[in-house]
């Protein structure tokens, strides 16, 4: 099968979507001529034309609002927010408008908008190029939230997202664009060519929204995670000697609670891992929901391994970014019981 990195997979997905549906349009800051600061739309303007893949002014509110108007009027916009740290000028248009349009109009108007945005840390981007703001979006009824962890899933999920008739916030773990990253920042960079997740079929295929994936089967404990942390967790488990199951959520909203509870009921132990700050992070919802559903199966407290409750630091990135060691600690902690 062809090997692609995540950028290539995302680019291919968009190319296919543009090809198949004349109503698909792509815009965002630097997404047109240049093809995006991460090159996810590279070549698409040249191929599909200025009017289908174009640059927007620097206004995230405008990018979302324009997408709403276009989406309601029959187009299927893919709007790029250059970094998810910069989504907040557009937050009102997402929470008050995009997410509620179907509900408040009782289905008369809807906007099938996909918002793509590079997300998460690990690239020395400091506090304004590293955020993981997914928790905010999971608290908004009326939108879906997706985070892929491999090129294969990125392509299949993006196609699903754009073809979905609901608004989708599609967060891309930018540290995974060029290769899987297991948290060991001192090791040589790995490439997707050596990873099965880099096997990306040609052409159109979908990975369904709302379905988690067991990326490592195990019986001792369950690790619930998504994005870059999937790979950090895999490496941690390999080193830990603990037979932990790892679940890659892929879609955070609506979350696949069935797969989660199936796993936790089996293992009785659960570690949740994400990059965002702990307090009111998405791990809180996961923990609460698991505890509600698996209370009688839990043998140890559900433990969260997360970023600290501080802004994302620059120099101390590796003291902030959840490490394999912290995951191993948490696993040992839940196993001790």
């Amino acid at each position, binding site marked *: 099968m062809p090997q692609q990195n995540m950028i290539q997979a995302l680019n291919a997905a968009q190319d296919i979507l543009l090809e198949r549906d004349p109503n698909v349009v792509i815009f965002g800051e630097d997404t047109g001529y240049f093809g995006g600061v991460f090159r996810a739309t590279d070549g698409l303007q040249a191929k599909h034309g200025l009017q289908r893949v174009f640059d927007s002014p620097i206004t995230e509110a405008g990018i979302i609002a324009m997408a709403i108007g276009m989406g*309601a009027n029959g187009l299927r916009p893919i709007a790029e927010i250059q970094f998810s740290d910069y989504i907040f000028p557009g937050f009102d248009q997402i929470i008050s408008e995009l997410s509620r349009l179907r509900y408040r109009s009782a289905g008369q108007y809807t906007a099938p908008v996909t918002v793509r945005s590079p997300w998460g840390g690990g690239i020395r981007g400091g506090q304004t190029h590293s955020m993981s703001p997914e928790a905010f979006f999971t608290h908004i009824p009326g939108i879906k939230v997706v985070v892929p962890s491999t090129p294969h899933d990125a392509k299949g999920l993006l196609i699903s997202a754009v073809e979905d008739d609901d608004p989708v916030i599609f967060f891309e773990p930018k540290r995974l664009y060029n290769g899987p990253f297991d948290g060991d920042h001192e090791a040589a960079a790995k490439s997707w060519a050596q990873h099965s997740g880099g096997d990306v079929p040609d052409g159109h295929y979908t990975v369904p929204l709302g379905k988690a994936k067991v990326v490592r089967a195990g019986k001792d404990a369950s690790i619930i995670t998504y994005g870059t942390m999937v790979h950090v967790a895999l490496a941690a488990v390999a080193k830990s000697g603990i037979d932990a199951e790892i679940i890659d959520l892929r879609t955070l909203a609506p979350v696949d609670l069935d797969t989660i509870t199936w796993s936790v009921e089996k293992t009785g132990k659960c570690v949740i891992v994400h990059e965002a700050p702990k307090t009111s992070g998405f791990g809180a919802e996961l923990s609460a929901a698991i505890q509600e559903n698996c209370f009688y199966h839990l043998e140890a407290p559900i433990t969260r391994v997360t970023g600290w409750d501080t802004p994302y630091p620059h120099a101390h990135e590796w003291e902030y970014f959840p490490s394999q060691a912290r995951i191993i600690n948490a696993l040992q902690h839940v196993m001790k019981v």
Partner: protein
Amino acid sequence: MERNAKMAQNNLHVPSNVARPGDAPDFSSVPLEPAGAAARPKIDVAARETHDLSYGLIRVLDDDGKAVGPWDPKLSAETLRTALRHMVQTRIYDNRMLRMHRQGKMSFYMTSNGEEAIAIGQGMALRDEDTLFPSYRQQGLLFVRGRSMVDMASHCMSNARDNLMGRQLPVHYTWREGNLFSISGNLCTQFPQAVGWAMACAYKGEEAIAASWIGEGSSAEGDFHVAMTLASVYRAPVILNLVNNQWAISTFQGIAGGNETTFAAKGIGYGIPGLRVDGNDVLAMHAATTWAAERARKGFGATFIEALTYRGGAHSTSDDPARYRPKEDWGSWPLGDPIERLKTHLIVIGEWSDERHAQMEGEITDQVLNDLKEAEGYGTLNAAPRPDPVTLFDDVLKDMPPNLKRQREEFGA
């Protein structure tokens, strides 16, 4: 002591030059340019050349009730009578609804008293396929587009016939069939959405355009700028309208920046022609909109229109204007009452009379009473029938997600 010393030299400028309760209304700053004086440029005019239009005032109806000057849209008497009918109907509907609110039949209401010429004049200058993105104060658009008052009132009473299933505050209409977008409670958000909609019209090669309305107070939101920027950059076929009714709840237009400039002049800074129009002159509103719509349809891009008017009533049923502005100020508003002005015009040109007017008012009142009564038959906020409560779980997403299914079950459905 130290505090007072500090206070004494406080140089912060806060605008406050407006008549307040107890003061006589002061409208000396309202420009009373003579009707017919403003030039009517070609539709491909450069924005810079609308400088005078953006600081002046486009008026068609003069003090004697005659239509004059290059902006006279030369509408037929039939069309003018239709406009008058819509305006009167809007006024009567509004005021009856206000009464029904007092009777507890809905939770909230907002009238458009005094501003009827804007929605009606502009609405009539547009085509049915043009999509409207109003604020909550252009109910006249619905009358122009022919929506039934039974449906309108049913929405406002959140009853079993409400096409919004009781999900929205009164007057936040949506009517897809009539190409009227979902009215938002969040100010100004619709402005850039209308631009996106218009861009999609251009993308699809359609002739349809979009039009949106905000209040002068709302124009301080960032979304105003975002809309103007996008409309300019992509030359979107959109008409962006600002209704300057002098008030934003209790704050006067100086707090929105109106002391330092006209609102219309903002257009020029984006390379968008800015027109300042007598908002109580339905002919002027119609003419300006016709001009802007042609401009948009021919590919010259957006127009920004400031409609100068006065909010006749309270902001909404939640406030009492007597606490922040002089009583009876509406009566001294120098641009008059839009209904009276059109009525006079029709009489002056021999196409109307006080008798016919009184008769029309009577007919409309009957119909309004009738329709509102019929609407009440479908329930009111506090009297059944109303939308089935379990529908509150619908339409969050296209297909109900598992979390909502669980919650609906917990709810007892």
